[in-house]
């Protein structure tokens, strides 16, 4: 009998929740204070902070990627004086671990905070793919700062991604460029691609392979490993039987370092260059690969000062002053611009009433983000209708030293192309 009672309570509760859901979805527009909005209105009482959510990879082998972006956003907050539309800015940072489960947890946590105005991040497409729909369901716009998987801003993206924009390029362009580099500069005719099953690596490897075929090259096979795999011998042995000219493996730090170390031990692959990509620009890659890294090339967006916006040198100075080291990865400028985009859009739509409370319409904020155009430190920011706000400038970097302390973007690894 006890069980039955519990069940009845559960049923009752479930019914009430369902009824509430019906009621809340039926009410279309919400009006609070001076603002009416289709999705909802965020009210920030006088003196309360304006809460900006953020999620990046903050731990593990890929943490340089996330920490670098967090610093970019922190500098942006400092640059506008720590205050926005009369409220102090509070940054709530979650760690997504650069995987789908972490992205889902982080986004759920941010979305469940009713005071979250907007979210910046993540760094990994694996986290953005489940994260963005959760946030948009709660009416929160997500400005991504380094997740580059093409599907996230593709014209055929699903409506649940409508609140997702990014101040970073799409891998459609990175893939096209990488194919061109491998085909025209390295003069490769036959390649093998290796991805790790993550949306980023899988989509980039596919786009690169398609473009490589268009250029007249041959993709012998598309291999896959898991991001945590340690034993690459079998897959590399298989690759060796296909005799490729180049192996293109846009995976992350841990698997990338394993491929790099182990490929040199496989008969037939000693002289075959392994090309990595943008997930691997980190001191941890040198730490994990050590001596094997010398001569390793990765394709990357051009982050040399000449290729960035005018304000970039000043931004890097600020970065060095605040954190006592040069940037540890390549997306700090995109993160800074993502934060700027958020601030500018909030300034556009926020309305303050006589009592000092601020009102922000969530739909209006999303539209303002899409409509805001400015010259960022990473280059011009201007979103298309699918949320793609930045362009890609290609480059190739080569590592020159196996000591992690020598890591400095521009020196080790140094830019060798174009």
């Amino acid at each position: 009998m006890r069980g039955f009672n519990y069940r009845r309570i559960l049923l009752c509760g479930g019914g009430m929740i369902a009824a509430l859901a019906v009621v809340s979805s039926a009410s279309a527009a919400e009006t609070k204070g001076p603002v009416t909005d289709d999705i909802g209105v965020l009210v920030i009482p006088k003196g309360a902070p304006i809460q900006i959510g953020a999620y990046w990879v903050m731990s593990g082998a890929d943490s340089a990627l996330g920490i670098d972006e967090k610093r970019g956003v922190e500098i942006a907050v400092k640059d506008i004086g720590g205050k926005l539309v009369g409220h102090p800015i509070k940054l709530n940072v979650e760690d997504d671990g650069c995987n789908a489960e972490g992205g889902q947890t982080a986004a759920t946590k941010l979305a469940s905070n009713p005071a979250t105005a907007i979210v910046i991040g993540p760094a990994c497409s694996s986290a953005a793919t489940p994260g963005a729909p959760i946030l948009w369901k709660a009416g929160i716009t997500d400005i991504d700062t380094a997740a580059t998987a093409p599907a996230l801003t593709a014209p055929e993206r699903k409506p649940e991604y409508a609140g997702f924009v990014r101040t970073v390029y799409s891998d459609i362009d990175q893939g096209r460029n990488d194919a061109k580099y491998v085909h025209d500069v390295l003069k490769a005719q036959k390649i093998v691609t290796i991805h790790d099953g993550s949306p980023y690596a899988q989509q980039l490897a596919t786009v690169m392979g398609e473009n490589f075929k268009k250029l007249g090259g041959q993709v012998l096979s598309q291999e896959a490993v898991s991001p945590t795999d340690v034993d690459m011998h079998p897959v590399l042995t298989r690759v060796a039987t296909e005799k490729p000219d180049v192996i293109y493996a846009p995976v992350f730090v841990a698997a990338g370092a394993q491929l790099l170390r182990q490929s040199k031990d496989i008969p037939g692959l000693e002289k075959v260059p392994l090309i990595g990509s943008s997930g691997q620009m980190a001191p941890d890659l040198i730490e994990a690969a050590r001596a094997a890294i010398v001569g390793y090339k990765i394709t990357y967006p051009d982050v040399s000062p000449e290729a960035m916006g005018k304000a970039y040198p000043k931004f890097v100075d600020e970065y060095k002053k605040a954190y006592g080291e040069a940037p540890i990865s390549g997306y700090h400028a995109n993160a800074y611009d993502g934060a700027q985009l958020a601030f500018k859009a909030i300034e556009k739509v926020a309305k303050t009433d006589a009592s000092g409370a601020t009102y922000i319409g969530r739909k209006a904020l999303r539209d303002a983000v899409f409509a805001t155009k400015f010259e960022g430190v990473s280059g011009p920011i201007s979103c298309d209708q699918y949320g793609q706000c930045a362009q890609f400038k290609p480059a190739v970097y080569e590592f020159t030293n196996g000591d992690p302390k020598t890591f400095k973007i521009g020196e080790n690894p140094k830019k060798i192309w174009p």
Partner: protein
Amino acid sequence: MSDAAVSRAFIPKLSSLSRFTFVDVVLWALRIGVVVVVVGGTIGTLIKARYGAAQWFDFLVFGVTIGSVYALVALGYTMVYGVLRLINFAHGDIMMTGAFSGYFVASSFAESGFLDTNPVLAMLGILAVAVTTSTLIAVLTERLAYRPFRRVRGLAPLICAIGVSFFLEQTFRGAFGSGVRAYPDPKWQKNTVDVFGFGVPLVEVLVVAAALVSMLVLYVIVQRTRMGTAMRAVSEDSDTAAMMGIDVNKVVVFTFALGGAMAGIAGVCYAFVFKQVYFFMGFTPGIKAFGAAVLGGIGSVPGAMIGGLFLGLVESVGPALFLDGIGIPAPYQLRDLIAFTLLIMVLIFRPYGIFGERMAKKRA
């Protein structure tokens, strides 16, 4: 005719059929499916002839290498289970502590050049530190975490083991960071040794040799010493053993120490093959080694050895042999699937594992 009469009339006819339940059908389908994949895949791969003898040999050697590491870790699972009926889920992390402490010694030896000039002494030093650390931590976990649960029935000890696993992982993460560190790569380890006319990297030969020697020593300890006899007695019946004057606590501590030492050796071997150490590195090999212990028959010492080697071989050779032939793209992504399918098959069709039955008879 009433409903009851109808059903009574049908029962005799249906009874022979009803012995085949839906579950039986599924299980048979599973068996047939696996056999078809294995046989079909093997034939397909052999017809395609993508790999030469050198490559097959490479797969085999690598399978034996990783398998012997699994076997070393599996021994810890199986011995603790034998004595305490506890699945020590923290055992993979004890291996991690060994690998981690070995890393600090190894990297300082590499920096000073000692690892290149005195490879034998340096390797022994690294092993000694790793084994000491992991043994100490294994004994401490027993004393602080498991002993209070010794007489507790139910799932509490198991949950405690999972808690210990998290504790060790997060402690190492807090103390040494979450990044990946790499073991040094001394040149002499890359030299190849000639085995049946094929070149095998020295480090793999060393790992297999180290594993075999430690397993042999362990087997002698368990079978030939007083302590080993006491261990076997406690694993048969701890109450009776206590009545015969065996100090059960001492035996349990000894078992944990032995398992911890094996895990320390395994950690260093693993790290010298795969180079990377980080706080979570013990999880996957731990689960695989647990699978190996179950495969061999949990509680059985030779079972863990054979189970580990078998699992390593299947994992290494399986994707190429079974999956390549049926045209599955990127078969190596499915390596863990093969390992765990194997485990599930054992659990379904031979729950006592390969060596389990013989032991069950002995126990009876």
